[in-house]
Protein backbone atom coordinates (compact mmCIF):
# COMPACT_ATOMS: atom_id res chain seq x y z
CA UNK A 1 0.00 0.00 0.00
CA UNK A 2 1.10 3.52 -0.78
CA UNK A 3 0.28 4.33 2.82
CA UNK A 4 3.10 2.07 3.98
CA UNK A 5 5.56 3.38 1.43
CA UNK A 6 5.18 6.91 2.66
CA UNK A 7 7.50 8.02 5.40
CA UNK A 8 4.93 10.02 7.23
CA UNK A 9 5.99 12.73 9.56
CA UNK A 10 3.32 14.04 11.85
CA UNK A 11 3.29 17.56 13.05
CA UNK A 12 0.69 19.01 15.41
CA UNK A 13 -0.15 22.59 14.89
CA UNK A 14 -0.85 25.01 17.69
CA UNK A 15 -2.89 27.93 16.51
CA UNK A 16 -2.06 31.07 18.40
CA UNK A 17 -4.07 34.25 18.61
CA UNK A 18 -2.80 36.53 15.91
CA UNK A 19 -1.43 39.94 16.71
CA UNK A 20 -1.55 42.20 13.69
CA UNK A 21 1.48 44.20 12.60
CA UNK A 22 0.98 47.42 10.65
CA UNK A 23 1.62 45.88 7.21
CA UNK A 24 -0.83 43.10 8.08
CA UNK A 25 -3.44 45.61 9.14
CA UNK A 26 -2.90 47.49 5.89
CA UNK A 27 -3.25 44.21 3.99
CA UNK A 28 -6.49 43.36 5.85
CA UNK A 29 -7.96 46.75 5.05
CA UNK A 30 -6.97 46.33 1.44
CA UNK A 31 -8.52 42.85 1.33
CA UNK A 32 -11.76 44.18 2.74
CA UNK A 33 -11.89 47.03 0.23
CA UNK A 34 -10.93 44.85 -2.73
CA UNK A 35 -13.36 42.15 -1.62
CA UNK A 36 -16.26 44.59 -1.55
CA UNK A 37 -15.28 46.23 -4.82
CA UNK A 38 -15.27 42.87 -6.60
CA UNK A 39 -18.83 42.03 -5.59
CA UNK A 40 -20.61 44.26 -8.10
CA UNK A 41 -18.66 43.08 -11.18
CA UNK A 42 -19.12 39.51 -9.94
CA UNK A 43 -22.87 40.06 -9.65
CA UNK A 44 -23.04 41.51 -13.17
CA UNK A 45 -21.06 38.54 -14.54
CA UNK A 46 -23.37 36.10 -12.79
CA UNK A 47 -26.49 37.81 -14.11
CA UNK A 48 -25.06 37.89 -17.63
CA UNK A 49 -24.08 34.22 -17.73
CA UNK A 50 -27.25 32.98 -16.05
CA UNK A 51 -29.41 35.11 -18.34
CA UNK A 52 -27.58 33.79 -21.42
CA UNK A 53 -27.74 30.23 -20.11
CA UNK A 54 -31.51 30.47 -19.74
CA UNK A 55 -32.08 31.94 -23.20
CA UNK A 56 -29.60 29.76 -25.10
CA UNK A 57 -31.12 26.67 -23.47
CA UNK A 58 -34.57 27.79 -24.61
CA UNK A 59 -33.19 28.13 -28.14
CA UNK A 60 -31.56 24.70 -27.98
CA UNK A 61 -28.01 26.07 -28.50
CA UNK A 62 -26.42 23.47 -26.29
CA UNK A 63 -22.83 23.96 -27.54
CA UNK A 64 -22.97 27.54 -26.31
CA UNK A 65 -24.62 26.45 -23.06
CA UNK A 66 -21.74 24.05 -22.41
CA UNK A 67 -19.20 26.88 -22.78
CA UNK A 68 -21.30 29.10 -20.58
CA UNK A 69 -21.37 26.38 -17.94
CA UNK A 70 -17.55 26.49 -17.94
CA UNK A 71 -17.70 30.26 -17.52
CA UNK A 72 -20.02 29.80 -14.58
CA UNK A 73 -17.55 27.42 -12.95
CA UNK A 74 -14.85 30.09 -13.26
CA UNK A 75 -17.19 32.69 -11.80
CA UNK A 76 -17.92 30.34 -8.89
CA UNK A 77 -14.16 30.13 -8.28
CA UNK A 78 -13.93 33.92 -8.21
CA UNK A 79 -16.92 34.05 -5.89
CA UNK A 80 -15.32 31.61 -3.50
CA UNK A 81 -12.03 33.50 -3.57
CA UNK A 82 -13.90 36.72 -2.92
CA UNK A 83 -15.75 35.17 0.00
CA UNK A 84 -12.48 33.83 1.46
CA UNK A 85 -10.85 37.26 1.19
CA UNK A 86 -13.72 38.94 3.01
CA UNK A 87 -13.85 36.18 5.61
CA UNK A 88 -10.16 36.62 6.39
CA UNK A 89 -10.63 40.34 6.71
CA UNK A 90 -13.72 39.90 8.93
CA UNK A 91 -11.94 37.34 11.12
CA UNK A 92 -9.32 39.91 12.02
CA UNK A 93 -11.94 42.31 13.30
CA UNK A 94 -14.13 39.64 14.94
CA UNK A 95 -16.95 40.37 12.53
CA UNK A 96 -17.21 36.92 10.98
CA UNK A 97 -20.58 35.44 11.81
CA UNK A 98 -21.14 31.77 12.61
CA UNK A 99 -24.45 29.95 12.52
CA UNK A 100 -25.21 27.12 14.96
CA UNK A 101 -27.24 24.34 13.43
CA UNK A 102 -27.32 20.57 13.21
CA UNK A 103 -24.94 19.62 10.42
CA UNK A 104 -24.86 16.38 8.46
CA UNK A 105 -21.14 16.35 7.67
CA UNK A 106 -21.52 13.38 5.30
CA UNK A 107 -23.78 15.48 3.12
CA UNK A 108 -21.60 18.59 3.34
CA UNK A 109 -18.53 16.54 2.45
CA UNK A 110 -20.16 14.85 -0.52
CA UNK A 111 -21.54 18.14 -1.84
CA UNK A 112 -18.10 19.73 -1.53
CA UNK A 113 -16.50 16.78 -3.33
CA UNK A 114 -19.09 17.08 -6.08
CA UNK A 115 -18.41 20.80 -6.54
CA UNK A 116 -14.64 20.23 -6.69
CA UNK A 117 -15.05 17.35 -9.11
CA UNK A 118 -17.04 19.57 -11.46
CA UNK A 119 -14.18 22.06 -11.42
CA UNK A 120 -11.36 19.55 -11.68
CA UNK A 121 -12.69 16.53 -13.52
CA UNK A 122 -9.18 15.03 -13.97
CA UNK A 123 -9.02 14.15 -10.26
CA UNK A 124 -11.28 11.52 -8.76
CA UNK A 125 -12.29 12.29 -5.20
CA UNK A 126 -12.86 9.08 -3.28
CA UNK A 127 -14.97 9.52 -0.13
CA UNK A 128 -14.93 6.63 2.34
CA UNK A 129 -16.74 6.04 5.61
CA UNK A 130 -19.48 8.07 7.23
CA UNK A 131 -20.24 10.03 10.36
CA UNK A 132 -23.05 8.48 12.36
CA UNK A 133 -24.14 11.61 14.13
CA UNK A 134 -24.90 15.24 13.53
CA UNK A 135 -22.51 17.97 14.57
CA UNK A 136 -23.56 21.34 15.95
CA UNK A 137 -21.81 23.94 13.85
CA UNK A 138 -21.95 26.18 10.81
CA UNK A 139 -22.74 24.13 7.71
CA UNK A 140 -21.50 26.68 5.18
CA UNK A 141 -18.25 27.38 7.01
CA UNK A 142 -17.56 23.64 7.38
CA UNK A 143 -18.25 23.33 3.65
CA UNK A 144 -15.60 26.02 3.16
CA UNK A 145 -13.16 23.85 5.14
CA UNK A 146 -13.75 20.86 2.86
CA UNK A 147 -13.65 22.94 -0.33
CA UNK A 148 -10.36 24.53 0.66
CA UNK A 149 -8.75 21.24 1.73
CA UNK A 150 -9.89 19.48 -1.45
CA UNK A 151 -8.85 22.42 -3.59
CA UNK A 152 -5.35 22.36 -2.06
CA UNK A 153 -5.11 18.58 -2.40
CA UNK A 154 -5.90 18.86 -6.11
CA UNK A 155 -3.72 21.90 -6.72
CA UNK A 156 -0.62 20.40 -5.13
CA UNK A 157 -0.95 17.01 -6.81
CA UNK A 158 -0.93 17.91 -10.51
CA UNK A 159 0.49 14.54 -11.58
CA UNK A 160 -1.89 12.44 -9.50
CA UNK A 161 -5.46 11.60 -10.33
CA UNK A 162 -6.93 10.71 -6.94
CA UNK A 163 -7.69 12.50 -3.71
CA UNK A 164 -8.89 10.32 -0.84
CA UNK A 165 -11.19 11.45 1.91
CA UNK A 166 -12.08 9.44 5.00
CA UNK A 167 -14.78 10.39 7.46
CA UNK A 168 -15.49 8.59 10.74
CA UNK A 169 -17.17 9.35 14.01
CA UNK A 170 -16.62 8.19 17.58
CA UNK A 171 -18.46 9.10 20.76
CA UNK A 172 -16.22 12.15 21.13
CA UNK A 173 -15.50 13.47 17.67
CA UNK A 174 -15.94 13.33 13.94
CA UNK A 175 -12.65 12.96 12.11
CA UNK A 176 -12.00 13.71 8.47
CA UNK A 177 -8.78 13.07 6.56
CA UNK A 178 -7.97 14.50 3.14
CA UNK A 179 -5.07 12.78 1.41
CA UNK A 180 -3.29 13.75 -1.79
CA UNK A 181 -0.44 12.11 -3.69
CA UNK A 182 1.27 15.35 -4.57
CA UNK A 183 4.45 17.29 -4.01
CA UNK A 184 4.36 17.25 -0.19
CA UNK A 185 5.24 19.99 2.26
CA UNK A 186 8.84 20.47 3.47
CA UNK A 187 9.29 19.73 7.19
CA UNK A 188 10.44 23.26 8.05
CA UNK A 189 7.37 24.82 6.45
CA UNK A 190 4.71 22.67 8.07
CA UNK A 191 4.43 24.74 11.21
CA UNK A 192 3.74 27.86 9.13
CA UNK A 193 1.19 26.70 6.58
CA UNK A 194 -1.81 27.69 8.73
CA UNK A 195 -0.54 31.23 9.10
CA UNK A 196 -2.19 34.06 7.27
CA UNK A 197 -0.61 34.90 3.87
CA UNK A 198 2.01 32.16 4.27
CA UNK A 199 2.92 30.38 1.04
CA UNK A 200 4.70 27.04 1.30
CA UNK A 201 5.68 27.37 -2.34
CA UNK A 202 7.92 30.25 -3.39
CA UNK A 203 5.47 32.69 -5.08
CA UNK A 204 8.15 33.75 -7.59
CA UNK A 205 8.20 30.27 -9.16
CA UNK A 206 4.58 30.83 -10.25
CA UNK A 207 4.13 27.04 -10.42
CA UNK A 208 1.31 27.15 -7.87
CA UNK A 209 -0.69 30.33 -7.60
CA UNK A 210 -2.42 31.39 -4.40
CA UNK A 211 -2.77 34.06 -1.75
CA UNK A 212 -1.93 32.08 1.38
CA UNK A 213 -5.34 32.40 3.00
CA UNK A 214 -7.03 29.05 2.36
CA UNK A 215 -5.43 26.99 5.14
CA UNK A 216 -5.54 29.92 7.55
CA UNK A 217 -9.29 30.13 7.01
CA UNK A 218 -9.63 26.35 7.39
CA UNK A 219 -7.72 26.38 10.69
CA UNK A 220 -9.68 29.33 12.08
CA UNK A 221 -13.06 27.76 11.25
CA UNK A 222 -11.99 24.48 12.84
CA UNK A 223 -10.71 26.34 15.88
CA UNK A 224 -14.07 28.10 16.20
CA UNK A 225 -15.73 24.67 16.26
CA UNK A 226 -13.40 23.58 19.07
CA UNK A 227 -11.55 21.25 16.74
CA UNK A 228 -8.02 20.59 15.63
CA UNK A 229 -6.18 20.20 12.34
CA UNK A 230 -2.89 18.37 11.84
CA UNK A 231 -0.86 17.48 8.79
CA UNK A 232 1.33 14.58 7.78
CA UNK A 233 3.49 14.89 4.72
CA UNK A 234 6.28 13.21 2.81
CA UNK A 235 8.14 15.08 0.08
CA UNK A 236 7.25 13.79 -3.36
CA UNK A 237 4.67 11.42 -1.90
CA UNK A 238 1.89 13.65 -0.71
CA UNK A 239 0.15 15.15 2.28
CA UNK A 240 -2.73 14.21 4.55
CA UNK A 241 -4.69 16.76 6.53
CA UNK A 242 -6.51 15.39 9.57
CA UNK A 243 -9.44 17.31 11.00
CA UNK A 244 -11.05 16.40 14.34
CA UNK A 245 -14.30 18.11 15.31
CA UNK A 246 -15.48 17.39 18.87
CA UNK A 247 -19.06 16.35 19.51
CA UNK A 248 -19.01 17.32 23.15
CA UNK A 249 -18.64 21.04 22.58
CA UNK A 250 -22.34 21.67 22.67
CA UNK A 251 -22.76 20.02 26.09
CA UNK A 252 -19.62 21.59 27.52
CA UNK A 253 -20.84 25.02 26.60
CA UNK A 254 -24.24 24.31 28.12
CA UNK A 255 -25.99 25.08 24.87
CA UNK A 256 -29.36 23.64 24.13
CA UNK A 257 -29.78 21.32 21.18
CA UNK A 258 -30.67 23.01 17.93
CA UNK A 259 -33.02 21.25 15.56
CA UNK A 260 -31.89 21.13 11.93
CA UNK A 261 -33.94 24.11 10.87
CA UNK A 262 -33.12 26.38 13.80
CA UNK A 263 -30.23 28.76 13.45
CA UNK A 264 -28.55 30.99 15.97
CA UNK A 265 -25.91 33.52 15.06
CA UNK A 266 -22.74 34.21 16.97
CA UNK A 267 -19.72 36.39 16.32
CA UNK A 268 -16.12 35.40 16.67
CA UNK A 269 -14.60 36.38 19.99
Amino acid at each position, binding site marked *: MIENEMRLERQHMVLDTFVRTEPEQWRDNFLSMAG*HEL*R*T*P*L*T*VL*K*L*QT*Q*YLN*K*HLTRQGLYDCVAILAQMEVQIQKL*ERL*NRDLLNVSNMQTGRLEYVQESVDLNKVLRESAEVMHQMHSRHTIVVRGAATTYLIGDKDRLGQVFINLLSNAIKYSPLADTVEVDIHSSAEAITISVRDYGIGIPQEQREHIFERFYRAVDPSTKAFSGLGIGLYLVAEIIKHHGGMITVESAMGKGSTFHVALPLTRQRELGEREYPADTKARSHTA
Partner: protein
Amino acid sequence: MNKHILVVDDDAQMQSMLQVVLESEAYVVDTASDGLIALDKLMHQQAMPGVILLDMHMPRLDGLQLIEALRQHEEAWLDSIIVISEDMNALQQASRLGVRCCLAKPFELETLLELVFNCRESGRG
Protein backbone atom coordinates in the same frame (compact mmCIF):
# COMPACT_ATOMS: atom_id res chain seq x y z
CA MET B 1 -51.22 44.12 -11.77
CA ASN B 2 -48.36 46.61 -11.50
CA LYS B 3 -45.56 45.45 -13.77
CA HIS B 4 -43.53 48.63 -13.34
CA ILE B 5 -40.11 48.42 -11.73
CA LEU B 6 -37.71 51.25 -10.93
CA VAL B 7 -34.03 50.26 -10.90
CA VAL B 8 -31.88 52.72 -8.92
CA ASP B 9 -28.16 52.05 -9.38
CA ASP B 10 -25.17 54.22 -10.28
CA ASP B 11 -23.26 51.31 -11.84
CA ALA B 12 -24.19 51.46 -15.52
CA GLN B 13 -23.48 47.77 -16.17
CA MET B 14 -25.47 46.63 -13.17
CA GLN B 15 -28.36 48.93 -14.02
CA SER B 16 -28.40 47.80 -17.64
CA MET B 17 -28.22 44.09 -16.78
CA LEU B 18 -31.02 44.36 -14.23
CA GLN B 19 -33.10 46.10 -16.89
CA VAL B 20 -32.38 43.38 -19.48
CA VAL B 21 -33.23 40.46 -17.19
CA LEU B 22 -36.41 42.09 -15.87
CA GLU B 23 -37.64 43.18 -19.30
CA SER B 24 -37.13 39.63 -20.54
CA GLU B 25 -39.65 38.61 -17.86
CA ALA B 26 -42.13 41.17 -19.27
CA TYR B 27 -41.64 43.81 -16.60
CA VAL B 28 -41.66 47.48 -17.56
CA VAL B 29 -38.42 48.95 -16.28
CA ASP B 30 -37.45 52.55 -15.60
CA THR B 31 -34.00 53.49 -14.32
CA ALA B 32 -32.32 56.13 -12.19
CA SER B 33 -28.59 56.49 -11.59
CA ASP B 34 -28.81 58.01 -8.10
CA GLY B 35 -31.25 58.63 -5.28
CA LEU B 36 -32.00 62.20 -6.29
CA ILE B 37 -33.11 61.23 -9.81
CA ALA B 38 -35.14 58.38 -8.32
CA LEU B 39 -36.83 60.67 -5.80
CA ASP B 40 -37.68 63.16 -8.52
CA LYS B 41 -39.20 60.42 -10.68
CA LEU B 42 -41.18 58.95 -7.79
CA MET B 43 -42.57 62.31 -6.71
CA HIS B 44 -43.72 63.22 -10.22
CA GLN B 45 -45.09 59.84 -11.22
CA GLN B 46 -48.81 59.18 -11.43
CA ALA B 47 -48.44 55.78 -9.76
CA MET B 48 -45.73 54.16 -7.70
CA PRO B 49 -43.79 51.31 -9.34
CA GLY B 50 -44.66 47.85 -8.03
CA VAL B 51 -41.02 47.27 -7.07
CA ILE B 52 -38.01 49.54 -6.48
CA LEU B 53 -34.62 47.83 -6.79
CA LEU B 54 -32.31 50.05 -4.81
CA ASP B 55 -28.52 50.19 -4.65
CA MET B 56 -27.02 51.63 -1.45
CA HIS B 57 -23.83 53.46 -2.37
CA MET B 58 -24.60 56.20 -4.88
CA PRO B 59 -23.53 59.82 -5.36
CA ARG B 60 -25.68 62.82 -4.35
CA LEU B 61 -28.45 60.92 -2.55
CA ASP B 62 -27.56 57.36 -1.48
CA GLY B 63 -29.88 54.43 -0.85
CA LEU B 64 -30.37 55.01 2.87
CA GLN B 65 -31.12 58.70 2.32
CA LEU B 66 -33.67 57.82 -0.35
CA ILE B 67 -35.34 55.30 1.98
CA GLU B 68 -35.49 57.96 4.68
CA ALA B 69 -36.97 60.51 2.28
CA LEU B 70 -39.61 58.04 1.07
CA ARG B 71 -40.43 57.01 4.61
CA GLN B 72 -41.17 60.59 5.57
CA HIS B 73 -43.39 61.00 2.55
CA GLU B 74 -45.31 57.72 2.67
CA GLU B 75 -44.10 54.86 4.87
CA ALA B 76 -46.06 52.23 2.94
CA TRP B 77 -43.76 52.82 -0.07
CA LEU B 78 -40.95 51.05 1.78
CA ASP B 79 -42.82 47.80 1.24
CA SER B 80 -41.95 48.02 -2.48
CA ILE B 81 -38.20 48.38 -1.93
CA ILE B 82 -35.72 45.57 -2.50
CA VAL B 83 -32.27 46.73 -1.43
CA ILE B 84 -29.25 45.33 -3.27
CA SER B 85 -25.78 45.82 -1.85
CA GLU B 86 -22.39 44.27 -1.16
CA ASP B 87 -22.23 46.14 2.14
CA MET B 88 -23.68 44.06 4.99
CA ASN B 89 -23.89 47.05 7.33
CA ALA B 90 -25.89 49.02 4.79
CA LEU B 91 -28.21 46.04 4.28
CA GLN B 92 -28.80 45.77 8.02
CA GLN B 93 -29.52 49.49 8.30
CA ALA B 94 -31.96 49.34 5.39
CA SER B 95 -33.65 46.33 6.94
CA ARG B 96 -34.09 48.21 10.22
CA LEU B 97 -35.72 51.08 8.36
CA GLY B 98 -38.39 48.66 7.19
CA VAL B 99 -37.73 47.93 3.50
CA ARG B 100 -39.38 44.92 1.92
CA CYS B 101 -36.21 42.81 1.70
CA CYS B 102 -32.45 42.89 1.23
CA LEU B 103 -30.30 41.06 -1.29
CA ALA B 104 -26.55 40.68 -0.76
CA LYS B 105 -24.24 40.71 -3.78
CA PRO B 106 -23.37 38.45 -5.49
CA PHE B 107 -26.73 36.73 -5.91
CA GLU B 108 -28.39 34.28 -8.30
CA LEU B 109 -30.63 35.47 -11.13
CA GLU B 110 -33.46 33.21 -10.00
CA THR B 111 -33.28 34.57 -6.45
CA LEU B 112 -33.75 38.09 -7.77
CA LEU B 113 -36.67 37.11 -10.02
CA GLU B 114 -38.36 35.27 -7.18
CA LEU B 115 -38.04 38.23 -4.81
CA VAL B 116 -39.37 40.65 -7.43
CA PHE B 117 -42.28 38.32 -8.19
CA ASN B 118 -43.18 37.87 -4.51
CA CYS B 119 -42.85 41.58 -3.82
CA ARG B 120 -45.32 42.37 -6.61
CA GLU B 121 -47.70 39.56 -5.68
CA SER B 122 -48.11 40.66 -2.10
CA GLY B 123 -47.57 44.38 -2.70
CA ARG B 124 -50.09 47.07 -3.33
CA GLY B 125 -49.49 46.82 -7.11
